């Protein structure tokens, strides 16, 4: 999917962010190759939004090395900005504008940044079709539904044909249909346009569906980094073996190690075993275990002070 001889789309080393006495990011290191889709996952207050805002160049960091498309985002110029897509969680902006008007306006800024390799901007009508807003192209933005509005945000974020796109909680409030459309669009961007994508999400299921790699951020640290399969293997030790024998259904949980040995013995010792199933815990179980571990650790730390701190914090 990517050519490894290219410079990485971004490279973050030992990123730290401190507000007063609180370390929001305590040494985050990760990078992405061109065309990769990364999902940044984590409980509230883990530092996801802070990380993405530092990479977008919207927030100054306390320490660490950050390179995004070969530049330090704290010193990124307009030509650098033109190669980035930032999908904002919009709210009420441009309410009297029409969909096509706003996209045509945004598109104009990117034309001078076209190169021989990248035709900029995206054709506005083609883009409107790609995000499924053709019927609403002439509608006032204030009349759009939540899902349509979000698709417009995505369209504005990618109108300049960015090499790297940041999505912060892109599908919050989407219905299942809009969610699937969004996933299709992400696949299209990464497969056909070789766009690198970094998205934050709470939703592990979504991350599993669209990400090549999942990073789990917890208390300002990366606690897991790998493909969905890798993570499931790495963090899951529990396996359940289900079978039927002697007319009864049996379950055996293998908590540590490989379950193959148990299954081999089972089959040798019981000739009548049927309906054998080996279930590995889903990544969701893994993730929930991680979040729970994080929360119990938090409340342990908070105990001397007497207050439980596992209430969800504000998004940092």
């Amino acid at each position, binding site marked *: 999917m990517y050519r490894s001889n290219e410079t990485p789309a971004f490279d973050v080393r030992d990123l730290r962010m401190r507000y007063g006495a609180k370390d929001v990011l305590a040494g985050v290191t990760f990078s992405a190759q061109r065309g990769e889709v990364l999902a940044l996952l984590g409980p509230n207050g883990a530092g996801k939004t802070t990380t993405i805002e530092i990479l977008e160049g919207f927030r100054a960091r306390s320490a660490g090395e950050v390179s995004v498309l070969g530049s330090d985002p704290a010193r990124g110029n307009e030509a650098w900005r*033109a190669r*980035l897509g*930032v999908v904002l969680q919009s709210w009420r902006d441009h309410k009297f504008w029409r969909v096509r008007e706003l996209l045509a*306006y*945004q598109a*104009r800024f990117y034309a*001078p940044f076209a190169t021989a390799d990248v035709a900029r901007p995206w054709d506005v009508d083609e883009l409107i079709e790609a995000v499924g807003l053709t019927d609403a192209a002439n509608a006032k933005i204030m009349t759009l539904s939540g899902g349509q509005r979000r698709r417009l945000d995505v369209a504005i974020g990618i109108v300049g044909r960015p090499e790297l796109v940041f999505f912060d909680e892109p599908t919050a409030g989407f219905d299942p249909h809009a969610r699937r459309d969004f996933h299709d669009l992400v696949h299209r961007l990464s497969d056909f346009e070789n766009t690198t994508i970094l998205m934050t999400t709470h939703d592990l299921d979504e991350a599993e569906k669209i990400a090549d790699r999942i990073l789990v951020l917890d208390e300002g640290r990366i606690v897991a980094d790998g493909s969905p399969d890798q993570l499931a293997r790495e963090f899951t030790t529990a396996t359940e073996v289900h079978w039927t024998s002697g007319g009864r259904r049996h379950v055996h949980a293998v908590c540590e190690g490989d379950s193959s040995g148990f299954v081999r013995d089972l089959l040798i010792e019981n000739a009548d075993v049927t309906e054998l199933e080996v279930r590995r815990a889903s990544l969701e179980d893994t993730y929930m275990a991680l979040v729970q571990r994080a929360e119990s650790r938090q409340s342990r730390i908070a105990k001397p002070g007497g207050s439980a701190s596992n209430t969800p914090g504000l998004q940092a």
Partner: protein
Amino acid sequence: MTTTIPLDARWAAVQAGLFRGWIETRQNFTETAYVIGHALPPVAYVAVLLFMRAIARGKTTVPGTDFSLVTMVLPSLLGMTIVYGGLSAPAPIITADREEGTLLRAKATPNGMVGYLVGKIVMFASTTLLSLIAIVIPGIMIVDNLVLDARAWLLLALIFVVGMVSTVPIGVALGSLMKSSLQAVLVPLVCTLLMIPSGIFFPITMLPTWLQWVAQAFPFYWVGLGARSAMLPAKMVALEIGQSWRTLEMFAVLGVWAVMGFVLAPILLRRMARRQSGSALAKVRERYMTKGY
């Protein structure tokens, strides 16, 4: 790697800004809420002019002349409209755009702030100009004794341009300074207070000297003076401070305001833009959801 000619990109941003200005001007004259906001002041001013003409009929209210007070009020209202459009109108708009996320979008776009500012300036200028036209056309039918020759119109056009240049940057700076749209409402309020001693509804020479000095520190008085110098018969200069139109002083004071604005506006805008981020916007949204403003 991308190779770019920055000048090219800037020019594209200026063109995008003109496009933005056109779209937003059009919205100002098609969206009901905006239309009412723009139509009310001219309607009120025309009512004031008609009222003043009615009570002034047969009397000479301007000492030493045969002219009625209503004659000096029309150009003064034009001056006030120019300054109001440049100084007071931008602050709430800039603050609202910030809180709604328009400025963050501009920041996420290459040269987006250039496009945003050009668009706003076009919009402020065009809406102010159209307000002026809405006052001038009925105004000259109501008010007698105005001088309406080529010199008057040319001077008015010049005063419009100078008035906008000297006030829009300050208005934008004030908008970037305000912490919330609730605070930004203070700007039009203070401006309205400043209009009272600025020689708009009665000659400034009727006021105590210290208040005359306060008024002379602000553009309302000077742009109004300029408009009066363009449209009033020469004899009416008797009502002004020092019995002079003080054209040179007018351009000097407005020039100082323009320089102040062009120095302050980019600094304050940049400071404000630096603070914009998705989470800053989320905080504003949270405030709206919980407090309602």
